[in-house]
């Protein structure tokens, strides 16, 4: 097998930046507008941040823009585009990759399990076996491995946690799939715990604060060129981590849409590069940031949304506890790879051939041909990408792995709602007094939930984790209780003599939300 192009990343770096800038400049219709727009946004961003020198430079530029001819404006635009291209450009260090992909799991256990570090020989920890057993991979792995040699694979997984990208990178490695490049938010680069993983694994920087056209063009072009050149890529099409804990219901796809652009561009150049989208789910028995996210989600319902800068993923102690929990439980973190799709939502077989819904083979080029030639069409391609997003979401549901915490939280929340039938979302989750659900009720409701997810699994509409399949209600309750209590800042539910006490409905809401879009759990906690 040829080495994936990401291993030649550094040799290509300068060339890549140049290619990005050349294309941005060639396709810039109005250089003065792009500079003006950038200047306006940058001054507004930089001045309040106290970066007066940079802001001043933009101010000077903005003042002279009116008198520039096109050639001079283009020249300046080229400089600026290069500056942003360098800012975006990530780093892939082959040695770090080799080291990290072996060490990553152990690396996680190092900060997740400090006691183990003390007990074991360092080399043993570096093998990473402990974590390898914990991240379970499943799905169309062999299929994807073949496609990775026929074209560029674009992974589009669900997004719950800041741990997702390192977990996914590890899952790829564990599944024998080639590494990926991905765009990570700048906040992950400044996160003291996660930055190690982000910097040297082919991640490039996406600065969500930069909202002007020039930056967007650089970013999109960068991503498209990577895919055109065969860099397998990872995007979280949900944009941000799911606040509610629910499976994504709205996908913008955003940068992932450059997968289609790359396909059209290479086809138009007569050297079509096939692009395969792979929906995937990253499933956790426990989510690192559950409490912060559900809080944020509830506040967002009151329109007080903010970008979280500081959450559980910046705190070593919380990650330590989480890791200890995950390592103690079977299949506590599972990555499932879905059926590969072409950019038009058709399923792709192992030979890279697309098939429509009725199984007919179909040439994806036919979707983008206009007057006999493949051509870009912004409005058309944006709509294709929206429709692809809808198909990806259906795959998310199908590939969701239901775990004991989800099933038990669903049952508990259903009983809670039955007890307070007229209560709205907020009165349900803000209940501070302790609610004790009788054993028998809890037992019956867990069984009922389990039957419903089993029925969905039979129809291939969900996947059950091994801990859910065939488990008794008592086992499920024990598993969930063991997982939930001790990791979160306080106990979530606890078995008592008279029944099961619900101590934090908010966190239960978070976990039950995973099954809401499937029609199993209450939908009031995800829909608006």
């Amino acid at each position: 097998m040829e080495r994936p192009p990401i291993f030649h990343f550094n040799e290509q770096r300068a060339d890549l930046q140049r290619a990005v800038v050349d294309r941005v400049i060639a396709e810039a219709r109005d250089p003065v507008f792009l500079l003006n727009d950038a200047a306006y946004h940058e001054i507004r961003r930089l001045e309040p941040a106290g970066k007066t020198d940079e802001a001043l430079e933009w101010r000077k530029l903005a003042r002279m823009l009116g008198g520039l001819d096109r050639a001079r404006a283009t020249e300046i635009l080229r400089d600026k585009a290069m500056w942003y291209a360098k800012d975006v450009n990530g780093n892939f260090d082959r040695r770090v990759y080799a080291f990290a992909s072996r060490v990553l799991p152990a690396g996680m256990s190092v900060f997740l399990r400090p006691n183990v570090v003390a007990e074991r020989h360092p080399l043993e920890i570096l093998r990473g076996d402990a974590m390898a057993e914990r991240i379970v991979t499943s799905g169309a792995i062999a299929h994807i491995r073949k496609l990775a040699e026929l074209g560029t694979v674009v992974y589009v997984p669900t997004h719950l946690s800041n741990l997702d990208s390192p977990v996914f990178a590890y899952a790829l490695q564990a599944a024998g799939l080639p590494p990926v490049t991905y765009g990570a938010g700048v906040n992950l680069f400044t996160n003291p715990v996660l930055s190690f993983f982000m910097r040297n694994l082919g991640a490039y920087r996406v600065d969500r604060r930069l909202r002007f056209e020039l930056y967007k063009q650089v970013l999109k072009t960068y991503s498209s060129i990577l895919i055109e050149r065969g860099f397998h890529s990872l995007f979280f099409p949900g944009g941000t981590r799911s606040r509610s804990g629910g499976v994504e219901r709205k996908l913008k796809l955003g940068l992932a849409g450059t997968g289609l652009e790359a396909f059209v561009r290479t086809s138009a150049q007569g050297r079509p590069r096939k692009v395969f989208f792979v929906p995937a789910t990253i499933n956790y028995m426990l989510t690192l940031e559950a409490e912060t996210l559900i809080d944020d989600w509830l506040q967002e319902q009151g329109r007080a949304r903010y970008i979280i800068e500081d959450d559980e993923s910046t705190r070593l102690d919380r990650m330590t506890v989480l890791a200890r929990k995950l390592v103690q439980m079977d299949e506590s973190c599972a990555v499932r790879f879905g059926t590969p799709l072409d950019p038009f939502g058709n399923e792709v077989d192992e030979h890279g051939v697309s098939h429509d819904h009725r199984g007919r083979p179909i040439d994806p080029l036919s979707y983008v041909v206009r007057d006999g030639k493949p051509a870009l069409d912004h409005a058309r391609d944006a709509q294709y990408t929206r429709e692809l997003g809808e198909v990806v979401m259906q795959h998310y549901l199908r590939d969701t792995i239901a775990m004991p915490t989800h099933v038990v939280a669903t049952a508990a929340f259903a009983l809670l709602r039955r007890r307070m039938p007229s209560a709205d979302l907020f009165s349900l989750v803000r209940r501070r007094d302790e609610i004790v659900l009788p054993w028998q009720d809890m037992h019956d409701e867990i069984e009922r939930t389990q039957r419903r997810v089993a029925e969905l699994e039979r129809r291939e509409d969900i996947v059950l984790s091994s801990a859910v399949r065939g488990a008794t209600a008592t086992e499920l309750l024990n598993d969930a209780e063991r997982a939930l209590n001790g990791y979160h800042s306080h106990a979530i539910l606890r078995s008592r003599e008279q029944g099961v006490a619900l101590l934090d409905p908010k966190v239960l809401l978070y976990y039950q939300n995973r099954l809401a879009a499937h029609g199993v759990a209450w939908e009031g906690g995800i829909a608006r």
Partner: protein
Amino acid sequence: MNGNGNGHGKRPKLSVVGGGAWGVALATAAASAGSDVLLYSRRQHELRRGITQTDDLTSLATHARTILLAVPTTHVRDLARELGDHLDGHHVLVHGVRGLVARPTNDPAWEGDDLITISAMLREETPARRFGALGGPVLTEELAAGLPSVMVVASHYPEVIDEVRGTLGGSSLRIYTTDDLLGLEWASALVSILAIAIGFARGAGIGAGLMSAFAIRGVHEAARVGMAAGAVERTFLGLGGFGDLLAAMSQGNRPEVRLGESLARGESMESTLAKLGQRIEAVELAPRVAEFAERHKVEAPILNTVARGILARRPVDDLVQLLMTAPMSRKA
């Protein structure tokens, strides 16, 4: 790739499926607009210049990039599946079917059917992706006779709208557009049910003032149902919804209106349908829509009255009473 919708200097090409009055009217309008039209029909027709006929789907698919479907809801899935074997991704499918199709639901908490739009069904049955729908206050006879008419085309793809305008639009057919494809499809289907209520009210001798109230309330009700399916309210209040209903009200012979009138006069469903000499899809659609509204907790007294009263042959006086006393949760 064959077919070149609106290439410069060349006559635009269009394929039409459906030898009924609606299909022939569409083909006629396209030919009048200067398009080279191929009509797929198994029956022989006398056609005006500019329209050729075929019974071969391969020729139909290679003739033009854009294919108009004008067949009854009951046949459209089978036809689409057959047609799908001859299509690829470059084709544009536009339908003028005023109905919705039932599909078994995936919802474990509900045992009935889901209602999906024709374009959603076309997505399942064909490899095409670029769909559009026709709707609005256009009347078959007027279109066929070349009288000035107005139509609405909906699509998520601007190029589909361009294709329809380029092949069908002309000096006697003005085409308005929307990107609310699902909304137009639902509006067209629901207006056909409301038209039964209008006919019934007319047959029952209801005065003009009350009639107008029924029409307006009916459209608002349809909009609420449509919104539960994901439509935009505006679409119902415009040409594709209210406009379509107004046309039905002022035109005496829309089959749904005639059905309602005749039922109000106490005639049986069978004899009325026999007299009309055609299937009325709204008859089967109405109970499904009532069920849909119930499931989505949308109040729909008029649609319900059509489904569970008029079509279920409850006594006439009761029905007027029912319409007059329906809950008034909304402002006028």
